[in-house]
């Protein structure tokens, strides 16, 4: 019991220190827009053409991070598959899904997919980009896993789309290197802001990320379901 108390006290003390430090040095909301952020806001649209500044930062200015991030997800999917490879599958019975569940999910599923693809297509205009879109698609599949009696997408196809999308992403990056001597450069025409076909390679990247994250997360859920 005392150990829990000490742990609580110490973490509270740390919380207090962090709060007092943050309160003193970075008062809430008073920080002016400076340095790199100011540059992004002022000429974000001119350089990258996307109205959603955060998206232009995520995909282009700091595109290398997103490449790393996609790798992290890919890593999680493969790691999960590797570690769960040897699990014994005990066959416990799955509760019989009711009729309502089955029919509703059957009709809802395409809508969810549509909504997911809407998000990543309009990534550079409206909030939300490739990642939430992919996850939305995955939750669609997740819904189908739970509700449908037997609905298992072929793992073969999932890992194929996943690696294909990954290689495509790297190729887009290399394209930038080949044409403009700098990896992940925005080589496509920027078009008129606020249009769907604008902001150079941002929509291309988000579409790729959407597919990749979607197939990865579904893969993860599939492995967990079958582990």
């Amino acid at each position: 019991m005392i150990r829990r108390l000490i742990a609580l006290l110490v973490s509270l003390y740390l919380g207090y220190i962090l709060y007092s430090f943050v309160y003193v040095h970075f008062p809430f909301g008073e920080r002016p827009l400076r340095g790199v952020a100011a540059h992004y806001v002022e000429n974000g649209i001119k350089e990258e053409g996307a109205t959603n500044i955060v998206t232009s930062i995520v995909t282009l200015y700091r595109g290398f991070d997103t490449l790393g991030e996609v790798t992290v997800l890919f890593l999680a999917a493969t790691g999960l598959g590797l570690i769960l490879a040897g699990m014994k599958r005990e066959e416990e019975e799955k509760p019989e899904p009711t009729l309502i569940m089955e029919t509703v999910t059957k009709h809802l599923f395409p809508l969810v997919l549509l909504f997911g693809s809407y998000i990543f297509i309009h990534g550079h205009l409206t909030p939300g980009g490739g990642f939430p879109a992919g996850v939305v698609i995955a939750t669609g599949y997740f819904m189908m896993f739970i509700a449908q009696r037997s609905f298992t997408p072929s793992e073969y196809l999932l890992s194929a789309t996943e690696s294909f999308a990954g290689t495509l992403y790297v190729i887009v990056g290399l394209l930038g290197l080949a044409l403009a001597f700098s990896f992940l450069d925005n080589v496509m025409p920027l078009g008129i802001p606020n249009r769907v076909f604008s902001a150079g390679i941002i929509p291309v990247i988000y579409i790729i990320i959407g597919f990749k994250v979607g197939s990865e997360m579904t893969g993860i859920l599939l492995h967990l379901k079958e582990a």
Partner: protein
Amino acid sequence: MNSLILFMALGLSVVLIVGTIIIYLSKDLLVAILGSAVISLIASIFFLILQAPDVAITEAAIGAGLTTGILLYAMKKTGRYEDD
């Protein structure tokens, strides 16, 4: 930040605190997982208040949706209650 939103944020932060205490106390993992889903949801709302829509959608989708899904699957495999 007008005061109405602030007041709502205060209410949500109280729910937040209750949520974490529930996670800490509950022996039943299902309750704990749902508690963490609630926390993610509230965090997503906070992100909205803080004018960060992108992050809000991502947090909602990943935090509330996917993490809870994964955790539930894992809980299915490893037993629902904490065995001492």
